[in-house]
């Protein structure tokens, strides 16, 4: 006798699944990855490989032997965490630094909360901030390792543009004077190749390409990156208009210090960002504001990692109180 299935509607499902989304994120990261391999050569490959393998391995070990639950590494989320963490480290980082960061990212930030979907803080950023606080020297060592791809190309500067500016301002120079000292700080250079900085932020253009891919594939919505960038632009713009000698202009602020990497790939992490469009806007504005406050008034030259983590902690509140626009504008009585 033939048997037919009877179950409630809907009877079809979109081709979307978690693994497919994670693979899309990796594809979106590919341009940045290729650019950094071109510039940093083996060290970039090494960091990414160590990151991905360690994150997946730690998740596997914890699920299999510690929690004794189903192993879900095939969803690729751990691999994405590993790659993202690698892109957030200085190119000269030793492999063991990457290993340690990955263990913290997956073991502490993700699995202790219950694994995928349960963590409050972005695992890759927890890994990065853990390393930044524990190994401040290594994590701000912007020396550029040799690459066999660009042998002969002179990598003239190692420090990040934000650090150069902050240092220069502290010494009493104006922004224009500092810029004149470092010809590498041109917008053109930052858009295509910005050698000083972490592995993933070499080329703003490559990151923007990733953003376009994520938007086209509808993996993320534009709300978070757009509000972060707009907030930074407006906030820095106001200060810049007041005193251009002491404050850098909006474009400079957007193109430097991991803002693009952070707003496109880190702040948009599903698990740790709000569920509603309205919530995403509040979250994005918060990240933009905190980033600028840290940059201008804090002791770190860069602040987006901390800004995202701080706003991560607000997300449960946002989800509780910020409701989506309901269809019905009024409720009929009786």
């Amino acid at each position: 006798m033939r048997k037919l299935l009877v179950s409630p509607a809907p009877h079809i499902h979109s081709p979307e699944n978690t693994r497919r989304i994670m693979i899309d994120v990796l594809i979106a990261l590919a341009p940045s990855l290729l650019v950094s391999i071109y510039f940093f050569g083996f060290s970039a490959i090494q960091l990414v490989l160590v990151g991905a393998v360690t994150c997946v391995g730690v998740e596997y070990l914890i699920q299999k032997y510690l929690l004794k639950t189903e192993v879900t590494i095939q969803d690729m989320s751990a691999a994405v965490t590993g790659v993202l963490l690698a892109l957030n480290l200085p190119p000269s980082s030793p492999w063991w630094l990457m290993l340690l960061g990955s263990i913290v990212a997956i073991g502490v930030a993700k699995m202790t909360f219950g694994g995928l979907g349960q963590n409050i803080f972005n695992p890759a950023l927890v890994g990065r901030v853990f390393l930044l606080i524990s190994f401040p020297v290594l994590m701000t060592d912007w020396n550029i390792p040799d690459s066999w791809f660009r042998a002969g190309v002179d990598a003239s500067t190692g420090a990040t543009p934000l650090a150069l500016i902050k240092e220069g301002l502290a010494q009493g120079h104006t922004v224009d004077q500092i810029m004149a000292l470092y010809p590498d700080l041109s917008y053109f250079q930052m858009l295509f190749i910005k050698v000083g900085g972490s592995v993933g932020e070499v080329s703003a253009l490559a990151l923007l390409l990733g953003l376009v891919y994520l938007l086209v594939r509808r993996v993320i919505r534009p709300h978070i990156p757009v509000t972060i960038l707009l907030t930074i632009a407006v906030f820095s713009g106001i200060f810049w208009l007041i005193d251009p000698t002491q404050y850098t202009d909006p474009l400079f602020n957007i193109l430097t210090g991991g803002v693009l990497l952070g707003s496109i790939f880190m702040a948009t992490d599903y698990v740790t960002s709000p569920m509603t469009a309205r919530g995403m806007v509040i979250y994005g504005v918060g990240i933009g504001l905190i980033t600028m406050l840290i940059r201008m008034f804090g002791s770190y030259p860069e602040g987006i990692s901390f800004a995202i983590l701080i706003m991560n902690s607000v997300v449960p509140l946002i989800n509780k109180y910020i409701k989506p626009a309901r269809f019905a504008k009024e409720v009929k009585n009786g």
Partner: protein
Amino acid sequence: MKKTFALGGVHPHDHKISAGSAIETFPVLDRVYISMSQHLGAPAEPIVAKGDRVKVGQLIAKPSGFMSACIHSSVSGTVASIEPYADLAGNLVKTIIIDVDGDEWEEGIDRTDTVVREITATKEEILKRIADSGIVGLGGASFPTHIKLTPPPGKKADYLLINGAECEPYLTSDHRIMLEMPEQILIGARLMMKALGVTRCLFGVEENKPDAIAALRQFKASYPEIEVVSLKKKYPQGGEKQLIDALIGRRVPAMGLPIDAGAVVQNCGTALAVYEAVQKNKPLFEGVVTVTGDCTEQQRNFRLRVGTPLDKMLDAVGGLPDKAMKLISGGPMMGKAVANIKAASVKSTSALLVLTEEQTLRKLQTQCIRCGKCVQVCPMGLEPYLLNKLAKASRMEDLERERVQDCIECGCCLYTCPAQLPLLDNIRVGKAQVIKILRSRPKK
């Protein structure tokens, strides 16, 4: 910018593979099974008995209350029995079973193709003809049409909206009737406008049916009061609340009806039935049904008598394919899975769809990754992930506060969820319980 509804929605592949097949008349079978519960409300009461001779279009059951509808015989022959018969879900409902003998129609039914344009009936006569012809909403809910066309005291309709969206994948019956009988549908719309006493009518058709839009628009000069609007393709555009939002930009209040937004929505198939009832004196006993599926040998559109068993419909497209896993009455997003293949068609049957395992079997559930896609696609602006959790925990007060009662069960959330969570399955259970609580509360 093409018009559409503001919130949410999804874009499933439309698979309108039967769109090119012209409507064919389905052969009359030896035996039909006419259910007494083909409409929302109380079942109809049979007025014939075993052994009675009936003709095509003869009244065989009368309404048994305010919310009920007439039922007519779809064949001529002898009443074999009146007994409980399993419907497509397997529930037993009172059914008149008729053994077919010839095809003798009731006198007075105009069987010609002549289009009767002149409207002579008064408002009251139109409503009476609609009620006497047993017309119910053919968009899915089977709400008795004459009741919908009589707004409660104190309410007034500004617009009649005709639903030609056909936003469900695979379905092409509305498409075919708009293409093949556009003027008849427009006359039906005009009749309903007269019954309602409205001067404005918008006719929404999704843009993936340009030929139907063109067919309707060629009569623009003769029917200037009816505006055919091309809508952006998006599911669930054919939902009443969504269509009202798309066409006139008004929002039906929560727990309210379309009339609270000054609109009455009728399906284009209903408009055709109204035309046939009023202008051709033909009661509702047949309709156009799409029988389709990627795995069936053929994909066809039939004009089918009410009470035709579903397995006979399948035989007409090459039988049940080996690969078939699920049989659906209606579309893949909101249709009902068929538990009884011997069940018979009803007035509002619009399609019989065959899906394969690959197309319909749900994948393994994974963890919620809090992507927010369910919130993004919900056309009612709800948070399905949250409702799912609350429903599983039976937190009724929280469910009510989060407006589970607004859910239209369109299935966008479940369709979209990358973790394959059974969101709507759980929400539906919670919604039913909350609605029960709301109904038991004394009215203010």
